[in-house]
């Protein structure tokens, strides 16, 4: 079945003429039609648009045009990224029916590379959450066990990969929203260096932390996609104006001999599931066996990362989400003669925003208020500086740092819905990377013995050293594959009967 192949293999099949992009796209659309009622990875499927893009890619190929390595390959786009004319909701009722009049830079780059966009994937509302349960359109189900969460906020993108509805996906990662879903679905996800991929057209949650990145089933596929979307964008002032590191070459290299790998002392132990730690330690042994030197490093300020994150991200979100006021786009509630604009704004926001979004807007509004600013937002920024220093010090001792991606495997839908703190703890190992603006990858490290569910291995590298993630990731991936004999996703059980 072609849909089970990796993107790189699909690209080879297109190049050799074994299949066409239209056929490949149709195969994925069929798969979506078959399984997405249960998975609910997609909020919108653009069959017509996808087939048209596929036909265009085929035509270019037939005409002998020079094509990008991913030309004609289908992709799932997280619904937080705007695509001209295609509904973009961010998983929120607020934006129901909105069709953006412009393309995000990521979409422009995908189009330029002739990547076929299948549709928009489900997510926690405005990317706030770790389970995709906060979507106004219902949760996404983990293909490994449909009663479990696929992680979040980008659960739709990762689930679509694990369910073979798409070989590639775009995610966004503010505190772990690419990496944690990757970990709990047995897929690969990369949060690039902050500024490495343009944020233009990414509906902002927390501007200083948000970063779009690639989601895939292999390290090489992620690198191929990363290369398409990365690079300086004059429309994003925070985008880095420097050459993109040689990530595809690194993903093809996979050599850790002599590399120093730092294990972060603070990101293990209490709160981490035994099976998660066991798989993590086995991966470390494999890396050591490949010639890497394993060292332990300490990042003492990580203890405050979660608390600081939950001041900075809500503060920025309270301002970013202020524009949803029913004046120009999205839903409008209570508009009637004699009702003031302010009342319409209030009624619309009451109906349009979900509980978690309201919680964070209120939290952020409070943290920025006069008299509280220094104690909350100000202190959180200081913590952020200290976390950066922790990383700087650690990177003096190691080329990359590693940890488990998420402390547990996928939990049951509804299990943590009423306990925001328990939910927030999912991101304890991923948040520091965003706070420091560096890059991180999660790749599958095997199944936990307790529940036979995927665990994730996180690799972290300094800013603009994204190539190191791919080098180490590729080495570990190859070692694990030879140990397992088959890719981890061959064990996906939730949709087993049909897979």
């Amino acid at each position: 079945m072609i849909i089970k192949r990796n993107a790189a293999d699909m690209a080879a099949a297109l190049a050799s003429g074994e299949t066409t992009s239209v056929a490949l796209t149709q195969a994925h659309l069929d798969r979506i039609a078959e399984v997405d009622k249960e998975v609910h990875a997609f909020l919108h499927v653009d069959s017509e648009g996808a087939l048209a893009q596929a036909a265009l890619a085929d035509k270019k190929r037939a005409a002998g045009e020079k094509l990008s390595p991913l030309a004609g390959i289908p992709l799932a786009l997280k619904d937080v990224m705007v695509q001209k004319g295609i509904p973009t909701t961010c998983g929120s009722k607020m934006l129901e029916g909105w069709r953006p009049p412009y393309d995000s830079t990521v979409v422009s780059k995908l189009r330029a590379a002739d990547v076929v966009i299948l549709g928009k994937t489900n997510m926690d509302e405005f990317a706030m959450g770790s389970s995709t349960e906060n979507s106004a359109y219902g949760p996404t189900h983990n293909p490994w066990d449909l009663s479990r969460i696929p992680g979040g906020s980008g659960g739709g993108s990762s689930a679509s990969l694990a369910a073979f509805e798409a070989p590639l996906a775009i995610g966004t990662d503010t505190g772990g929203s690419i990496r944690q879903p990757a970990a709990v679905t047995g897929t690969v996800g990369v949060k690039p260096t902050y500024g490495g991929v343009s944020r233009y057209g990414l509906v902002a949650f927390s501007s200083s932390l948000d970063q779009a990145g690639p989601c895939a089933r292999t390290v090489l596929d992620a690198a191929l996609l990363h290369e398409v979307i990365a690079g300086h964008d004059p429309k994003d002032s925070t985008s880095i104006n420097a050459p993109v590191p040689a990530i595809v070459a690194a993903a093809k290299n996979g050599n850790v001999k002599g590399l120093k790998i730092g294990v972060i002392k603070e990101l293990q132990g209490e709160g981490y599931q035994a099976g998660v730690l066991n798989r993590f330690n086995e991966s470390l042994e494999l890396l050591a066996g490949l010639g890497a030197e394993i060292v332990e490093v300490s990042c003492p300020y990580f203890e405050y990362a979660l608390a600081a994150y939950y001041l900075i991200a809500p503060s920025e979100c309270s301002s970013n989400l202020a524009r949803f006021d029913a004046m120009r786009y999205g839903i409008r509630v209570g508009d009637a003669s004699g009702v003031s604009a302010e009342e319409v704004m209030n009624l619309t926001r009451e109906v349009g925003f979900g509980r978690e979004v309201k919680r964070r807007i209120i939290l952020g509004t409070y943290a920025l208020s006069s008299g509280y600013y220094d104690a909350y937002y100000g202190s959180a920024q200081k913590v952020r500086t200290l976390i950066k220093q922790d990383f700087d010090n650690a990177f003096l001792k190691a080329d990359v740092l590693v940890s488990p991606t998420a402390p547990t495997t996928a939990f049951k839908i509804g299990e943590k819905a009423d306990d925001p703190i328990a939910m927030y703890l999912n991101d304890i190992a991923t948040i520091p990377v965003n706070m420091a603006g560096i890059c991180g990858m999660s790749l599958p490290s095997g199944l936990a013995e307790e529940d036979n569910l995927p665990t994730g291995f996180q690799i972290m590298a300094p800013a603009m050293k994204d190539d190191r993630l791919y080098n180490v990731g590729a080495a570990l991936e190859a070692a694990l594959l030879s140990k397992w004999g088959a890719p981890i996703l061959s064990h996906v059980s939730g949709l087993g009967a049909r897979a």
Partner: protein
Amino acid sequence: MSLKYEDVIAKYEPVLGLEVHVELGTASKMFCGCNTIFGAEPNTQTCPVCLGLPGALPVVNEKAIEYTIMIGLALNCSIAPFSRFARKNYFYPDMPKNFQTSQYDEPICINGFLDVEIDTDEGIKKFRVEIERVHMEEDTGKSLHMGGATGRIHGADYSLLDYNRAGIPLVEIVTKIVPGTGKYAPEVARAYVAELRDILRSLNVSDVKMEQGSLRCDANVSLRLIGSDVLGTRSETKNVNSLRSVERAVRGEMIRHAELLNKGERVVQETRHFQEDTGLTRSGRSKEQAEDYRYFPEPDLVPIVPDATWIETLRAALPEKPSTHRKRLQEAWSVPDKEMASMINADVLEIVEATVNLGADPAKARGWWLGEIARIANEKDVTAADLPITPKDVAEIVALVAAGELTDKLARQVIEAVIAGEGRPSEVIETRGIKVVSDDGALMAAIEKAIAAQPEVAEKVRGGNLPAAGALIGAVMKETEGQADAAKVRELLLKHLGQ
């Protein structure tokens, strides 16, 4: 009966504070590439960025930074080596993002001053107005409230929003408190705004049209008992859109405050709106409870770190100061202080200069602009510059008078006709058939007729009573419909009567 101004200043000392907003004359907006043409069709100069669409990001207009630095340098400010934008959060329908991107605690220019001169009964007096800061921000859109009687939001049936103005670059120039102006406070306020306007004009960074809102002044006024060093409560008067209004607003507020204080009432800290028709202010938004704008650094923009050599290049290229320029003109034209001051007061200096540059004699150019044209402007309650007569027209008229082709009296007719829209001077002369009657024959005929009509007067003249000739000359002028050269008539008449 309101309090007399003399009584106000006998008891109280006014303290001024002036905030001036200037729309920069950049071709594109502050954070996007949209046009900034005044008066365009509503909502035709907008894009995802200035409409605040989800996902859109700002990029700073470098020209706006350059202009702001030039303004800072011209106002003797220090240019901050590091400054930042901040978000000022508040909800309003014409604010696309519901936050204004502005500068808060890290403005680009600080600590400057501007010296102004005013003409008083005690001679020319100098005042130094200290500048606290010059910072950049974006303008909001415009709300048009329809259906109500007042054009205000209360009582309106509905409102229309025009976002063409949203994102226009604004510079805000804030003075420190200005004490010590005493009874001259209104004149100092006016002179400050006028001087500032002239500087901005000389820098060519804005079209500084107060009536179009490209230069807007908020006048803060408070009173304290003479000898006290405790500041009184201030009011902030907005909507002051002419130089004359600045003066009137300050004087009006001083009287209003004094009346309240004399009655033992307190001044409310509030925004007040200046009413052009009455010269009074009306109560606006109360500022008793400080609004919490929850400022925080704009995460979508990088800090502004201007290159020191760039600043020095800009400093070196600053044009001649308006005050220096005026001194130079005054010397070149040999104009006494008083007359220079009246040109400045009537706001005609620039037009006079333009007229002189077109070849007119300085004294004549000054005479027309300060005389006939100023008189008509006064009648119409506009400034001379607003009348549809140009320096070129006046230069042409001056030349015609010098060539003897127009008399002063005829020239006045031509000026009136040009202002009435009858065309350029040459066209007016052509259509109206205006010409100086210098033909001796035609004049002699008119003289004979006048003598015949008033023989007794002619006798007096013959007898040596020369002043009596005036009546005959008048009759001749009447006969020739003012087109005769009066000096010539006199010469011929006296000769004819043997004198």
